[in-house]
C-alpha cells in the first residue's frame, strides 16, 4: 500500500528541489517565472496551494505549515470571497511569525480558481466539498503536483473512476498522495492493523462499524442567494456536493473495515430513510442508513450511521476474528481480546501525535526527502465507492453488487463550472428536493 522508493543516500536538498521541479510538468517551467518554479540558490521552500478555504482547509494549511519549516502558502482558492478572506486572516493570525506567509499568498476566486492556484505550487491541498474533488485531483496530478486531499474523494461513480484513473498517473509520476482518512495515520489504528496482519485474532469474519451521532451544521437559505449559491453554502445536504453522510462522514469507519480486511466488499444491501431530519433546510440526504457489506472473504460488516439527536451516540469500529476480537475508535482506543476475554493488546495513546498533524508530517517528510511513499488515492476511492455502494443500497432497497455499481456510471452532475450553470438538482414548488424512496428509486440515483 505504502511503497517506499529509496533514494540515493547522497541526495542533497538541492537535488530534492530539482527533483520536485522535474516531477512538475513542463508547463510550469514555461509559464512561470523561474523563482516560482524552483529555488536555484539552494533554499528549500515547498510551495503549497490551498483549494477550498473552509475551516477544514484552513486547518490543513496550518498543519502543512507546522509540518515543515520550508512550507510557503503561495496561493489560495475558493468560490466564496468571504471564506477565502477569513481563511487568510486566520492563517496570518495563527502563524504570525512564520515564513510560510511572509509573502502574501495569491488569491483566486471562482470555479476555475483551483487551476490558477495549483499552477503556482509544488503541493496542492484539496479541501472543497467532495463533489469537486475528482476534477481538482485530476488537474493537480496532470500538473505533476503532490497532493493532500480530504475524504471522500468523489460523490458519484464517474467521479470515482476519474480519481482511479488519476491515481494511476500519480503513481507513474511518483507523486505522493495523502488522503485525510486520518485513522490510517493514527498510531492506535496503525498498531492494531499490524497485529491483525500477524494473525493475533485470526481472520476477520465479521464486524460492526458505527457513526451514530447528532448530525452536523445547517446553513439556512439567505434572501439574496441564488439556488446554486444556497446549495454550495449548505452543501452537506446535497448529494452532488456531499454524497450523504454515509459517504461524507461514515466513510471513516467503512474505510477501517476495508483496511483491516484488506479489500473492498462485493455486495451491499440495506435500509435507510429521513425520519427526524427532514425539513426544507435538509436538502436530499437521509438521516439514517444501515448496510450489510459482504466481502470476497465471506466476512460481513454491518454499517450503521445515524444523524438523530437524542439517540444512542456511538462512533467506533469492531471486528470479530476467528481467534479473537478487536475494538478501535478515534480517541485512540485499540483493544484486542481472545474469546476467553484475555486482553491481547491494549493501546495507550495518551502521548500519540494528533493524526491530522501526523498525516501532514509524513507527507511533507516524504516530499522533503524526495521520496515516493504515499499513494492513498486508490484506497480512498475504493472506500468512497464502498460508501456510495451502501447509499445505492439504502436508496433503492435492493442488493447491489460492486460490479453493477461500478458499471452504472452514476453521474450526479458535479461538473458545475460557473455561477450561471443550473444546479444539478432543483426544489419543487413546495421547496422540496428530490429524495430517494426505497422500493421506487433506482440505485442509479
Amino acid at each position, binding site marked *: 500500500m505504502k511503497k517506499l522508493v529509496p533514494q540515493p543516500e547522497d541526495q542533497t536538498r538541492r537535488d530534492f528541489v530539482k527533483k520536485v521541479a522535474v516531477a512538475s510538468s513542463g508547463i510550469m517551467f514555461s509559464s512561470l517565472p523561474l523563482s516560482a518554479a524552483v529555488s536555484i540558490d539552494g533554499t528549500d521552500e515547498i510551495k503549497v496551494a490551498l483549494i477550498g478555504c473552509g*475551516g*477544514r482547509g*484552513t*486547518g*490543513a*494549511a*496550518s*498543519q502543512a505549515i507546522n509540518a515543515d519549516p520550508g512550507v510557503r502558502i503561495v496561493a489560495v482558492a475558493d468560490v466564496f470571497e468571504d471564506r477565502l478572506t477569513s481563511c487568510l486572516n*486566520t*492563517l496570518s*493570525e*495563527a502563524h504570525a511569525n512564520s515564513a510560510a506567509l511572509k509573502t502574501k499568498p495569491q488569491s483566486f476566486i471562482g470555479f476555475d480558481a483551483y487551476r490558477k492556484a495549483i499552477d503556482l505550487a509544488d503541493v496542492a491541498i484539496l479541501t472543497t466539498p467532495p463533489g469537486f474533488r475528482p476534477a481538482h485531483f485530476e488537474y493537480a496530478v496532470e500538473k505533476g503536483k503532490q497532493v493532500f486531499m480530504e475524504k471522500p474523494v468523489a460523490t458519484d461513480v464517474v467521479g470515482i473512476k476519474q480519481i482511479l484513473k488519476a491515481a494511476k498517473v500519480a503513481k507513474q509520476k511518483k507523486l505522493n498522495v495523502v488522503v*485525510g482518512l*486520518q485513522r490510517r495515520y493514527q498510531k492506535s489504528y496503525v498498531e492494531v492493523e499490524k497485529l491483525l496482519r500477524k494473525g493475533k485474532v485470526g481472520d476477520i469474519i465479521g464486524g460492526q462499524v458505527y*457513526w*451514530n*451521532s*447528532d*448530525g*452536523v*451544521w445547517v446553513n439556512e437559505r439567505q434572501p439574496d442567494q441564488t439556488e446554486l449559491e444556497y446549495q454550495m453554502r449548505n452543501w452537506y445536504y446535497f448529494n452532488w456536493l456531499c454524497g450523504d453522510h454515509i459517504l461524507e*462522514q461514515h466513510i471513516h469507519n467503512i474505510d477501517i473495515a476495508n483496511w483491516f480486511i484488506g479489500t473492498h466488499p462485493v455486495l451491499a444491501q440495506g435500509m435507510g430513510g429521513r425520519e427526524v431530519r427532514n425539513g426544507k433546510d435538509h436538502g436530499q440526504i437521509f438521516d439514517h442508513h444501515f448496510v450489510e457489506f459482504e466481502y470476497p472473504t465471506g466476512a460481513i460488516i454491518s454499517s450503521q450511521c445515524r444523524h438523530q*439527536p*437524542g439517540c444512542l*451516540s*456511538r*462512533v*467506533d469500529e469492531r471486528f470479530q476474528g476467528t481467534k479473537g476480537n478487536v475494538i478501535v*475508535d*478515534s*480517541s485512540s482506543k485499540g483493544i484486542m481480546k481472545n474469546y476467553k476475554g484475555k486482553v491481547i493488546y491494549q493501546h495507550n495513546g495518551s502521548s500519540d501525535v*494528533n*493524526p*491530522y498533524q501526523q498525516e501532514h508530517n509524513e507527507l511533507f517528510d516524504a516530499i522533503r526527502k524526495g521520496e515516493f511513499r504515499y499513494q492513498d488515492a486508490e484506497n480512498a476511492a475504493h472506500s468512497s465507492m464502498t460508501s456510495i455502494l451502501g447509499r445505492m443500497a439504502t436508496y433503492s432497497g435492493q442488493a447491489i453488487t460492486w460490479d453493477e455499481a461500478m458499471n452504472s456510471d452514476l453521474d450526479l452532475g458535479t461538473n458545475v463550472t460557473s455561477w450561471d450553470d443550473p444546479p444539478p438538482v432543483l426544489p419543487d414548488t413546495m421547496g422540496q428536493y428530490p429524495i430517494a424512496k426505497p422500493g421506487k428509486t433506482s440505485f442509479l440515483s
Partner: protein
Amino acid sequence: MIRFNLLSVFILVLTCLSFFDPTENKFTSYDIQLSGPDSIQMQSIPGSAHEGVDSFWMSAHEITWDLYEHFLFRDIDYAPLNQEFGPLSMDIDAISSATTPYVDMSFGMGKDGYPVINVTQYAASTFCRWLTAKTGHFYRLPTDDEWEFACRAGSESKYCFGNSARELKEYAWFTNNANQKYQPVGLKKPNRYGLYDMHGNVAEWVVDDPTKPNKQKLPLYPRTVRGGSWKDDSKSLTCSARTLSSKEWKKHDPQLPKSLWWHTDAPFVGFRIVRPYQAPENYEDWWVKPIKDFGF
C-alpha cells in the same frame, strides 16, 4: 473608591449572614424547572465572612447532557417557564449558540443522566448565560474559592468526609471504580451541602473572579478544573487539587481556528453552575469571553 467597595462588600456579607438562619425561607434550596422532567436542583450554600465567600446556590449535580442539549439545540428558548421569571431581562436571541459537533462528543459513554463533557470553559459559561436569559436569574460558573468551599462543606481534610482514600469510593467515581468511563450523576453519597460528585466523575470548570486584579485578560490556556475525574487516581480528587487545561485538550480538532465550544480530548471535563445570593451589578463581566484558538 476601593475602600468604599470593600466596605460595601463587608456590609453585603453581613446582610447575607442574616440569611444563614436555616429557618429563614428566603435562602433555601430550589429547583430550576427547565423543561418537562429536566430540572436543576440548586443547593443553598451559606457563605463565610471568615473564608471570604459570599452565600450562593450551587447545582447539586454536574450538568448533564439532557440539560446541556437544550442549550445546544435551542429547543426551549421560547417555551413557557413553569416558575416565576427573575429580575434580569436579556434577549435570549442575542446569545451565541454552540456549534453542533462533527464527532460524537460523549465518546459513546452515554448521555441520558450522564454529565456533559468535552465542553470548553467558554461553552460552559455560555450555558450559564443562556440559563440566565431563560430564567431571569444570574447563573455563572463557580469561582475557584466557591468551588473549594462547596466541596469541603466544612471539612478541613483532604476530602469532604475525611482523609481516608479508602472511603473515597463511596463518594466518587475515579480510576479505581469507574470502569474507564464517566457514570450517571448522583449515584454516590453527597457531601454535607447535598452536592454529589464533587470528587470525581468529571472534573469541573471554575472561573476566576473578574473583580480581582488582573483577572480580565487571562490567556486561553491554562485554565482550571476542579475535583478530578473518572480517569484520575485518589490524589487528583482532593478538595484542594487542581487540573490545568492545555491546548492538548483540542488535539483532535482538525479545523482552524479550533472550536470555541468543544474540546476533542477532554472527555473528563464537565461543569456545574452557581447562582450568587446577590447578583452583582456588572454581572456580564462574569461570563467567559471567547478567545480564538489557534492551537498554541
